């Protein structure tokens, strides 16, 4: 049994103008110790997917269908107090986007790290703080910063502290939502290396959400490409990154500047991502797709396995 099984997940934002289908019928599995990258443009639903996994969508977002099983436990439809005491942080924790704001400015680092331990496991504050010190050391920080306030740390230090916070309760799965976005390149590399080594050391499962494919290919065993609320391609990193099958993935990779190879001009994808209130019929990418043909605007493509473990949702491979 896989550690995480997501099946037919639908997360919608129920607004006054209609349903925004931010995650629409998404399925995937994740094994223990495996890392999966979720990539796509802004607004493709990757962060919504991340928050759905701990069933904590900001209103008016809601999971309207499908199933999420972590370690065999169904998360969808679970009452709030059980989610709080059994799932959040104990099974699945999160490393937040923009670590700058994930720490409350008025509390010390130690207090914020220790908080979930105190409430979940009933340990004393003193014990919880000493555990926080251990984990701060694990992520390469001076354990004495338990007494410091967030504004006294640099961006990289804060990001490390946020990582330590996510690991404190030995979760099975860590969701990292753009963990390196607001950091400069050198710190970015340090954080990525840290995450790689932690993954090895602690046999962590990681879901890493980012729009930066170069960063993702560094750390992920598998990559899932999302477009307009759906997974359009999923497979081993080197296959998806090295030999992309879906026209969208190809375009996305073409849009990355490369230093080594000579590039005539940076490619871009004409048009804009569709409005998720009312997505196009058939394949959602078809209005922007260079290789669209007859069935694309009528029928929605299913994910098909084009080579072992490499799945693509495109009529080019299934028609």
């Amino acid at each position, binding site marked *: 049994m896989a550690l995480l099984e997501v099946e037919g997940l639908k997360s919608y934002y129920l607004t006054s103008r209609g349903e925004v289908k931010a995650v629409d019928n998404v399925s995937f599995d994740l094994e223990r110790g495996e890392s999966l990258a979720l990539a796509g443009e802004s607004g493709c639903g990757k962060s919504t997917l991340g928050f759905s996994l701990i069933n904590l969508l900001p209103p008016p977002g809601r999971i309207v269908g499908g199933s999420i099983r972590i370690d065999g436990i169904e998360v969808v439809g679970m009452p709030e107090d059980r989610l709080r005491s059994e799932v*959040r942080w104990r099974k699945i*924790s999160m490393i937040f986007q*923009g670590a700058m704001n*994930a720490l409350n400015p*008025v*509390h010390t680092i130690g207090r914020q790290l220790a908080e979930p331990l105190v*409430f979940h496991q009933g340990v004393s504050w003193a014990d919880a703080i000493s555990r926080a010190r251990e984990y701060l050391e694990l992520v390469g920080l001076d354990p004495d910063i338990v007494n410091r306030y967030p504004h006294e740390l640099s961006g990289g230090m804060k990001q490390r502290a946020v990582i330590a*916070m996510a690991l404190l309760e030995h979760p099975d799965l860590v969701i990292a939502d753009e963990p390196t976005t607001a950091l400069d390149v050198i710190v970015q590399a340090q954080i990525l290396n840290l995450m790689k080594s932690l993954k090895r050391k602690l046999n962590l499962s990681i879901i890493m959400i980012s729009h930066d494919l170069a960063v993702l290919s560094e750390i992920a065993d598998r990559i899932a490409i999302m477009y307009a609320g759906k997974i359009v391609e999923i497979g081993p990193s080197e296959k998806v990154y090295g030999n992309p099958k879906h026209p969208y993935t190809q375009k996305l990779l073409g849009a990355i500047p490369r230093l080594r190879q000579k590039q005539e001009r940076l490619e871009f994808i004409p048009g804009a991502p569709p409005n998720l209130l009312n997505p196009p019929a058939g394949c959602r990418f078809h209005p922007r797709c260079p290789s669209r043909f007859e069935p694309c605007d009528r029928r929605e493509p299913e994910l098909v396995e084009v080579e072992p473990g490499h799945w693509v949702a495109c009529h080019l491979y299934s028609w």
Partner: protein
Amino acid sequence: MGFGRFIVVRVLNALLVLVIALLLVSAIFSAEAERELRGRIEEQITNQLRNNPQLLRSMTQEQIAQWKAEQREILYRRYGLDKPLWQRVLIYAWDQLRLKLGKSTSIQSLSGSSDVATIILEALPRTILLFTTAQIITTVIGLILGLKAAQSAGSLLDKSLSVFALLTASLPMWWTGMLFIIIFSYYLGWLPSGGMISTPPPEGSLAQMMDIGYHMILPVFTAVFVSFGAWAYTARSVVINQFQEDYVMAARAKGVPERRVIFSHVLRAAAPPIVTMMAFGIIGSLGGAMISEIVFNWPGMGRLYWIAIEQRDVPVLLGNTTISVDLYLLVVVLMDIIYGFLDPRVKVGAAAKL
């Protein structure tokens, strides 16, 4: 330590403001005070003469004029009127700074004293009792309502709160007070229309306290009525902003109980702006809402100020202003200190700015 220095600088700053304010006020009032004083001196001399008919009869007109001039000179010297104006302004300001508030010219305290300090110390607790009580009730109701509205943003409660806030905040308190007096006092006859205590006062201190409480109901209700909506609305915006912060989301993701998320993360981080609002509310209330105190015939600082203006009682005006400025600056400095403890970023930022 940076924060200690910050506080010292803030205190010195407040003292500087105090000195400037007192100099200005003394300069403004000294001309009026002197005109008043000269008038009183003339009166005193005339009285002296009138009370001493023998002296009056023994002197010619010229001698009388000369005697008057001599007396005038003696008294001018005694009251410092022979010194140049700027020196007299400095003397006034220095007296105010030392809280040597002097004697009133016509207003008397309840006990018959014309000592300005006594008069003010009589009025100040009454204002504190009335408006600070109202401010505390407003704060508590406002915070609870604001929090509820923020938690259910867009709900009926939230929407009606914003309409109510807009409506009540635009009603002047004295006007609402008059309206309530008409309704609750004249038509319904439930509550007294004004004053602080019945005449004659009831026997026994408990009965007196109850009586004062009874007289407080209408003004406190009025003050709370016109201000708690706006308070709740502001608290709502502050809390809603907090709810959208990543660290609140993070606290929820950590599986922390919602009550703790609200108290330890949302309200704790929202404390600085809320405390600021509260502090300014209390400062505002200490000065006493002049018109409202007159409407309710409440013998506090605001009404005292008004009477002092009407009766041209300059020492009371000056003393009242001085005490108000003192209290204002005291609260501001206290707030700076509290702020440093509520928001650790202030300490560093403050130290960096020095």
